[in-house]
């Protein structure tokens, strides 16, 4: 929880903390999902082959065109061994029944599922409150910040849940709330906030990609990876 969150909480605007510690980091100091990970210990990134020029967007477009084999080929080409590309590559393998590839990627998927970010992206991508509930619970257990939980709730297909999420967002992080209102909800008169836009983009890209791929399949993969990791 960031310093500004705590200051607002001190005024009774959310959460339970009544401390106001000046030594807390600012809310935007760490990218969503960075919490709880020791990035210094990670192996160096494996760069994709030069000149492929392909992206997750190309893979999703191929799937949407019905060419799942081409989508898998693109994902295998651009996979850097971590992140969204690996997640979708493994999900595509699971969908195709390619157990060898699934097994080879499960550890990376389990690592990706650590912390709260992926759980909330999945919850937001699933939309259905009943399906999203276990992922929301995992994110809460992983100490997801209030704004991130509110955002995931705002993505619910249930109107009351969606409204409650938007209200929570407004009280927790008004800049992000207005950016989401403008971009996700097309609220008349809402405008994006320049300071909140990078955070919006970082979270929404994963959520939207998972949604386009098929959140149920990604959920099955994550459940399996986390089950195996325990």
């Amino acid at each position, binding site marked *: 929880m960031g310093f500004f969150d705590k200051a607002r909480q001190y005024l009774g*605007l959310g959460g339970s903390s009544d401390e106001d510690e*000046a030594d807390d980091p600012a809310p935007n100091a760490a990218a969503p999902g960075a919490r709880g990970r020791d990035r210094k210990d990670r192996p160096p990134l494996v760069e994709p082959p030069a000149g492929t020029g392909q992206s997750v967007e190309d893979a999703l477009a191929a799937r949407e065109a019905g060419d799942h084999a081409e989508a898998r080929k693109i994902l295998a080409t651009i996979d850097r061994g971590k992140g969204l590309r690996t997640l979708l590559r493994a999900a595509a393998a699971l969908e195709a029944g390619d157990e060898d590839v699934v097994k080879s990627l499960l550890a990376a998927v389990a690592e990706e599922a650590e912390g709260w970010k992926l759980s909330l992206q999945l919850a937001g991508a699933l939309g259905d409150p009943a399906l999203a509930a276990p992922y929301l619970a995992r994110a809460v257990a992983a100490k997801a910040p209030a704004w991130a939980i509110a955002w995931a709730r705002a993505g619910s297909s249930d109107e009351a849940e969606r409204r409650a999420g*938007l209200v929570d967002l407004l009280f927790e992080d008004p800049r992000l709330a207005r950016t989401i209102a403008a971009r996700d*909800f097309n609220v008349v008169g809402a405008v994006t906030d320049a300071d909140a836009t990078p955070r919006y983009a970082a979270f929404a890209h994963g959520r939207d990609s998972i949604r386009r791929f098929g959140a149920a399949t990604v959920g099955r993969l994550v459940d399996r990876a986390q089950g195996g990791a325990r």
Partner: protein
Amino acid sequence: MSAHVRPLLSLYTLNRPELKAFSSELRAVLTSDDREGLARTLGLGAELSARVGKGPRAVDWFLRAETDAEAAPLFASLRRVAKKRALALAWTSAEPSLEGRLRAFDLLREDARVAGLIDKLLDAERLPWFLVRPGATSGWLDSAKREDLAGQLRPLRPSLPKELVAFADALRDLDGDVVAHDML
């Protein structure tokens, strides 16, 4: 040519329990989408009450930009009610230069503790969204931090310009938590 008028920074005593209560009431009516309750909470007249009855969700009105012509009077009502319930004007600076002095006067900036407390008092991110106005300077300190800042400013008093002396005196004379705002 019209002259640009710089706003004057004011200090308000904050009734924190009342602000919390107001915030809770507002949150409840928005969450339940209680349009009549929202109109009552904000003390809206007939025209604005009808306005908040429109649209898919009541909360959408406050997700709009404050510059939105239709939403602007609702934001104004919100601040007016919040101010009436939880804030009491204690002092207004006579000098438009006060904020600049607070943010840049060497003697204050050289003391990390003083500078940190001043920055908190002038940090709108620490206030609830409904007290924040785009382009305005605002923030708050709890009672202990206000007393701390007033105490830190006391020995500096002989070296401070007049607008900072007046600010330090006002801060010292206040009771409890304080909100600073120049467009409330």
